[in-house]
């Protein structure tokens, strides 16, 4: 079943809307800066990929994730020319830590907040001027791709005609501190699939898209930006934190089965590529097993060297980027990669600079702690 993606929106450390983000990514722009949100003196890790907005302020604010989420959703809804009369619509949000930063600020700096502000529902409904059901899921770093999979299910079952799928995460001091304790090598930047990669750094961002049935898009007279062919999922059932080659490969195979495609027709993979020792090794092995001799042909890129690890939002940010790759015939480079690690020798990695080429099928990865893996397949609209 093909589903129409009719609108997208995105914010990241390199751009405050989807077109801005995509052109910055294609230029290889990195949002890597020294940490601004809180005093980095207490940590070994000093850098991150933060969204500072137009007014760069040192003081942090509450509800940043909610604001970006609302903006990304608003952009996607505008883009899809959707109005609130479209009744059978649901909104699914994938997030890692929701509004945890607001809670931290309430505790450490006495910023005002209400418990209800921890949830995105009210703010988001206010922004799009509608009273649609808002469901939030938290599946670690694959949350927004799981939301996309759930949207596919809802549409396939005919429960709704359109789903707004979104993801958002802001930096939190507690997560940053935690990462500081578990990454002994104190990376200065994310280096996906690099031999000398030293681990992950946090990023911030939000993404949204409007997904609807072909009939719904036709009825509204909107052209799809791209097709969603399917979302595959798997659970490693193997280890609390370490990824598993077989589990990751199962998610890819499930995606191909659901999309009714074979690995031969994949043109581009936007990898999860966190720059950690284990993820990149596992992901590379799984990709190698999936593609076999096709490995020389399929382009592979990853965004985290430019925008950091945006946690629950990362999967959907890659999907929104992939939609632009299909539309604009351009693939952003894998920034941060200098010396490819042994496991990716022979891979067709988009290194150094963006590649201009026609792409028909793109595959997007997002893997989370707990072994929750999701893989999406998107196709160029005719």
């Amino acid at each position: 079943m093909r589903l129409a993606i009719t609108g997208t929106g995105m914010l990241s450390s390199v751009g405050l809307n989807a077109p801005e983000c995509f052109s910055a990514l294609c230029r290889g722009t990195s949002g890597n800066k020294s940490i601004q949100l809180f005093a980095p003196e207490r940590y070994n890790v000093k850098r991150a990929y933060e969204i500072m907005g137009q007014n760069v302020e040192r003081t942090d604010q509450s509800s940043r994730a909610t604001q970006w989420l609302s903006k990304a959703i608003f952009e996607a809804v505008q883009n899809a020319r959707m109005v609130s009369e479209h009744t059978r619509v649901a909104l699914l949000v994938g997030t890692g830590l929701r509004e945890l930063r607001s809670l931290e600020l309430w505790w450490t700096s006495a910023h005002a907040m209400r418990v209800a502000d921890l949830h995105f529902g009210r703010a988001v409904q206010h922004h799009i001027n509608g009273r649609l059901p808002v469901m939030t899921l938290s599946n670690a770093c694959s949350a927004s791709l799981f939301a996309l999979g759930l949207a596919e299910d809802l549409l396939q079952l005919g429960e709704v005609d359109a789903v707004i799928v979104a993801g958002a995460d802001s930096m939190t001091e507690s997560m940053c501190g935690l990462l500081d304790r578990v990454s002994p090598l104190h990376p200065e930047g994310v280096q996906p699939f690099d031999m000398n990669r030293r681990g992950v750094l946090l990023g911030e961002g939000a993404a949204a898209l409007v997904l609807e049935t072909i009939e719904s898009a036709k009825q509204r007279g909107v052209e799809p930006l791209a097709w969603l062919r399917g979302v595959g999922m798997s659970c490693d059932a193997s280890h609390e934190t370490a990824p598993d080659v077989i589990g990751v490969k199962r998610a890819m195979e499930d995606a191909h089965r659901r999309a009714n495609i074979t690995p031969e027709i994949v043109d581009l993979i936007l990898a999860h590529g966190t720059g950690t020792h284990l993820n990149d090794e596992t992901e590379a092995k799984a990709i190698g097993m999936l593609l076999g001799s096709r490995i020389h042909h399929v382009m592979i890129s990853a965004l985290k060297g430019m925008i950091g690890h945006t946690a629950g939002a990362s999967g959907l940010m890659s999907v929104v980027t992939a939609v632009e790759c299909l539309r604009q015939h351009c693939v952003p480079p894998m920034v941060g990669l200098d010396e490819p690690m042994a496991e990716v020798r022979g891979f067709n990695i988009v290194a150094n600079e963006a590649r201009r080429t026609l792409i028909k099928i793109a595959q997007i990865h997002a893997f989370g702690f707990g072994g929750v893996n999701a893989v999406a397949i998107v196709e160029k609209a005719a």
Partner: protein
Amino acid sequence: MKHENTAVAITGFGVISPIGIGAQEFTTGILEGRSGLKPINGVVANRVPFEQACVIPEFEVKTYLGKKGTQSMDRTTGLAVAASGMALRHSGFAITPANETRSGVVLGTSTGSMRSISTFTKETFVQHPPYLVSATEFPNTVMNCAAGQCAIWHNLKGINATVSGGRLSGLLALRYASLKLRLGYTDLLLAGGVEEFCEHTAWAFHHLRQGLRNESLPIGEGCVMLALEKSAAARCAGRYVRAEILACEIQMCPLAQQPNCGQLSEGLANCIQAALDSAGVSPRDVWGVSLQGCASELGDPETRALTTILKENTSVQYLRISPLVGETYSAAGVFQIAAVLARLSHSPAHERVVLVTSFSHGGSVGCAVLRG
């Protein structure tokens, strides 16, 4: 009719009931109107608050499953494992290494084995310090023990879900399983419900029932497992489609502080209508209804709801399974479905649409639409 290409089929069922073990014996029991009520004498070791119940003394785990691997298996798990095996054999679906990860179990049970949980918990209090309890008994105390053992015994390595929803458990399991099949997450699911008889449930039933004086059903036990596949795949493989699930809707109806028959029947009527809409079936086309049939001093919301929806249809057949097998709670919904399958298999004729209705006094309501 909607969902034509994604319709879900029941290709077999396994049943262990107070009126017969196995699909054939159960069907005979239904047609004869056999009562499952019998003396409890000797079924349990301790005193229970009544002398008769719808029990299955002839079902013993070790007799049915053998001694190997059943040393510490409780009755709930034994019923589910045995009924699962029957359902697989009845459907003719063979589990192989090629399809085992695409085959799974969805089991409705509200509590797991009450006997296992209660006994184990009691041990932790009455043993001398340091309160050593038998580790082999522990797995029985977790609710998904039965579903897990079904998977282990029958090599069902795909979806494994335990659904807990009181009297709605059976229909909830059916809905969950149907959705997973329709969405292509799996190819075969054994879906059903189980309830064991033990002293603990007997006493709980006795005390809870005191608030509802007219609820006259005796307590029952048993298990029904349905083998579900996509209709197209089943027909393609030459397996007999006993019935198709056209819809299964579950809703919560808002109730005032005190349960109230009017509100409950209105909620159930809305749910039945939603199920008919979802199935694309008109009330005129309904041939029969398999009733839960638990009238109490609160009245009979089920009959009231059905009268509202089916008012113009005067030829509806009503199937009543609960007077035969008793109050089987978590298994009630699937027993109603098994009664439909028994009835349909007895007189295969033109296609008939049957409703299965379910409700609880907490306000959950459900309705499945079957065609066979």
